[in-house]
């Protein structure tokens, strides 16, 4: 599973980072960046939680 954050939609709510700090980074404005690489199997549920909590629907899991 790969995480994608749509930079055009992300507004820096920071929910993904708060819920799954291992899977996301924040830039200096507080906007989210997905960490590189595949989501470890034991963090797939966490990735799904992060995506479903995004008010902007900016996170997709592929």
């Amino acid at each position, binding site marked *: 599973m790969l995480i994608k954050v749509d930079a055009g939609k992300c507004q820096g*709510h920071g*929910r993904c980072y*708060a819920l799954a700090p291992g899977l996301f980074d924040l830039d200096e404005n507080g906007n989210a960046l997905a960490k590189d690489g595949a989501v470890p199997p034991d963090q797939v549920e966490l990735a799904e939680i992060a995506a479903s909590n995004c008010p902007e629907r900016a996170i997709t899991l592929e």
Partner: protein
Amino acid sequence: MGYQKRSERGEEPAPKGKYIGFLGPLDQDPFAGIEALGQRPPFWVDDPNDVDGYWVATGFEDVRDILQDTDTFSSIEANIPFVMMPEPLLPTESDPPFTQKLRSLLMPHMTAKKVGVLDPRMREVCRGIIEGFKGDGKCDAVEQFSRVYPITIFIEFFGLPAGQKEEFRRQANIFLHFADQRFDAWMKIRAIVEEQIIAKRASPADDLLSAIATGRLDGELIDIKTAVNLASTVFVGGLDTLPSNIAWALRFLANNPQYRREIIENPGVVPGAVEEFLRLYSVANPMRRIMRDVVVSGANMLKGDRVLCSIAAANRDNSVFGDKAVFDRKSNPHLAFATGPHRCLGSHLTRHELAVALEIWHELIPDYRVSPDAQIHYQGPIFAMEGLPLEWSV
């Protein structure tokens, strides 16, 4: 420019919905009113307090999508009730790409990480205030706590002198709640802020005002007028919202001991409780002006109309969130801080301060109730309680 009524634009009246109070003194608990309204497509209300009627959007998806689509739904000359101001409030009353340009000055200074640095000070201030009245066995949680703690933190974070705290709060309250005095209050706030901006530009400190005073737009030092405007908007946006959030949360917990028990027994639920209170008691009602004819869930919105987004109604959409308060829900994509490029810049400060307030309050005063003879009065359009008498055993 200004607002042109639907009838003056030669348009037919829109199908009407039931008017519920959003503005000024409200005759009932606004959230109870919104709850009773339920979910429906956007409807038109004739507001006795305004120059014309406007649309009210209540659906979760409608509100989210409207706030994201800034091409169709502009923030310029969108306010309800309509008041012509000497200048637009920035960045609130701007549209992209100017919005992002202005916000890029503020965002790096208002991130969760930056705000997190204030945690020990938040705890210290909160504890000091609550310990001050704990022995009395009662307090007005609005007058003595929810309006005192946030401004104490905000003044320091912002970089304003503490001595003028009460005057700042008073002007912000007038600005937010009394449309007929809004212009005057804005000019007073502006004058206070301008003095500070000029001082900070000469000798910057490590605070938000200094960051604004020395900020750059397109590589050029920001002009004083824009800096004062930005800082004044941040100031009015930060003062009244969090006090309301705290008051609504405390009243809910006073009236619902089983939820209070969760917080007392396991402070680890606080972050989830914060999200749930933000969802259930969303105090802001963002307004937009429609830039092209558009159909939203069957409602024919016309160019020139305005729409009020009831975030509280959207966040109480049972098809998304169910009908109960749940502190440990897995998914809580609430819209309390709006969506789109105008996402509340104070969201991280609000979350952190609200969490600290709930933790420290329940550590010091775990059991309390609303005073039986309490008469609670309400205000809009930032949904506020004017006083919340609480009591407990000492």
